[in-house]
């Protein structure tokens, strides 16, 4: 059983929802990423989405675009990111790590090498924003054999046929994009999310996690009522941007926000029981 699946089973037993923070690897610098990952686990993260920086992040808003630029200024490569995961794994054997990014750095490395090295580093899942299931078909089995969960997105505009396809091929969890737009856009509409998740649940067995537009602890708590996990990216990354010259403070601010989300989500779950 994959580390991601184990995590969601444990959470289900505890009656809790997953907190999934996203940070861009190498932002604000390479040395900060691994300590920040450990600090996020400390603050209550169940899965970490680690962004692989890309020069042309088409699906991201300005916050994550700038994070990519900060990271690429130091030349952070996919190999560097895999090195960070391996470093993190030396002392953390339990927290699932998902690499999130765009396809071209993977294409440049080559699929066989990427799959082998990601698996060896201790990566659990891969979310490639611009790799839809149709295009992934020819490489999907390679990822599966290496024990890497291929995580897909679903959107408010996804058709029933599409939801079925992703229900069949998605592993680990499914990332539901809560709104029409790029990362870091407007605030989330929980009722709209709930309606769409009901529709999706009919065809998708994997845990459903929701991202885009979750800006604070209160929103995280409300969204967590209707899904299996809450993904927070731009809200955390903008804390890093504010303290890009002071990585120690950046870690404090990021974990402060993540911790407050954890508390609010757990309090909510406890109240429901």
């Amino acid at each position, binding site marked *: 059983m994959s580390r991601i699946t184990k995590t969601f089973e444990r959470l289900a037993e505890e009656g809790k929802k997953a907190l999934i923070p996203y940070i861009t690897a190498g932002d604000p610098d390479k040395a900060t990423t691994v300590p920040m990952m450990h600090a996020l686990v400390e603050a209550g993260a169940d899965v970490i989405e680690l962004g692989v920086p890309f020069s042309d992040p088409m699906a991201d808003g*300005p916050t994550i675009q700038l994070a990519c630029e900060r990271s690429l200024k130091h030349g952070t490569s996919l190999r560097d990111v895999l090195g960070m995961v391996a470093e993190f794994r030396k002392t953390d054997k339990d927290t699932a790590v998902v690499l999130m990014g765009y396809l071209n750095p993977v294409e440049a490395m080559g699929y066989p090498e990427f799959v082998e090295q990601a698996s060896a580093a201790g990566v659990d899942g891969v979310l490639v924003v611009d790799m839809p299931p149709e295009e992934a078909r020819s490489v999907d089995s390679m990822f599966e054999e290496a024990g890497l969960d291929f995580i897909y997105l679903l959107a408010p505009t996804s058709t029933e046929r599409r939801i079925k396809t992703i229900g069949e091929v998605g592993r680990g969890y499914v990332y539901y994009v809560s709104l029409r737009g790029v990362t870091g856009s407007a605030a989330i509409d929980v009722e709209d999310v709930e309606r769409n998740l009901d529709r999706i649940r009919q065809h998708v067995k994997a845990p459903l996690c929701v991202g885009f537009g979750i800006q604070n602890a209160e929103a995280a708590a409300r969204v967590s009522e209707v899904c299996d996990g809450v993904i927070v990216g731009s809200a955390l990354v903008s804390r890093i941007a504010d303290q890009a010259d002071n990585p120690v403070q950046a870690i404090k601010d990021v974990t402060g926000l993540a911790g407050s989300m954890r508390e609010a989500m757990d309090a909510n779950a406890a109240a429901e029981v």
Partner: protein
Amino acid sequence: MSINTTEKQATDFNVEMPDADGHFGIFGGRFVSETLTAALDELQETYEKLRNDPDFQAEFDKELAHYVGRPSPLYFAERLTDECGGAKIYLKREDLNHTGAHKVNNTIGQALLAKFMGKKKVIAETGAGQHGVASATVAARFGLECKVFMGSTDVERQKLNVYRMKLLGAEVESVTCGTKTLKDAMNEAMRHWVTNVDDTFYIIGTAAGPHPYPMLVRDFQSIIGRETQRQCDEQIGRQPDAVVACVGGGSNAIGMFHPYIKYPEVEMYGVEAGGLGLEGDDHAAPLSKGKPGVLHGNRTYLMEDENGQIMGTHSVSAGLDYPGVGPEHSWLKDVGRAKYVAATDDEAIEAFHKLTRLEGIMPALESSHAIAYAMKLAATMDKDKVIVVNLSGRGDKDIHTIAELDGVTA
């Protein structure tokens, strides 16, 4: 494994490309976020319906004839031919189209699609501003709201076109992320589209991007090659020995090439921007020096570093300043049907002056790359051979650049 060089021998050029999922061999496809999938499905469905619909085709043809001014002439450049001392050089005069370039063939087609789909707003990306102008023009013609995304570097160096777009009623959005040029304008247009997908049509300016764009842009631009075939029959009684076109994203070239693909006796040459020379990094020649990768929704040759990050490009011509290329060109290169070469900034500028002085035709700096290579090629061929060069645009927009290079302050 999906990444393999396509077999050269096995290719049947009579088979319709792309396949149902938009693949040209290993190239093309649809590499986009889930958030764009429904919109692309809708576009594909609409286009498949209209592609062979006689009413749609008739409306498109009517616009091309009476609004764009087609057919564009095929002109024998006699003095240029004499200068080179070899094959006869003919020019396909896309510079004489309304708005001064081939771009309008495509924007008319896509604006008609937008109309059929009931979309009231169009967006476009632009580098030099030619596609932005062509989009703003058809938006005015069809009463659509138009927003054009343009890198802030290009906004600065193409002020006249920015003003043209504004006169036409378009809003120009200056893009300040990344390298602040065409690729970033395209990123930003995609982001805007994802957010406003219900009422907005994205008019992509070149034969690249996610399926079905490379196919539909090619179809709209193929009027260039089809007319050339007819005009060659009429004027010289046979087809040319070679066709030559410049390649940035590659829409004018694919428009010329596509109808000729199944006639292997006609050689095809795509001329990329060699910038300061192919030995360094200051060029925009992904087919000559790049490798296959994925950007802007399709797999194609790209200029990228060893880690898969997209590189900044350089060309004296803003319209060729793009790190990728349409997927059909990548396929034509790999199967060996077309040859891709490069002309440097200096060669293009020299060709600009030659054509201006010898024929009284001022070519766009993009098209000057094609002229530069055609002149070299002609000199190696016998006098009874024929070359057709696609003169994709006129050079008025580049006078400022040329003046600066000549040290003239206008």
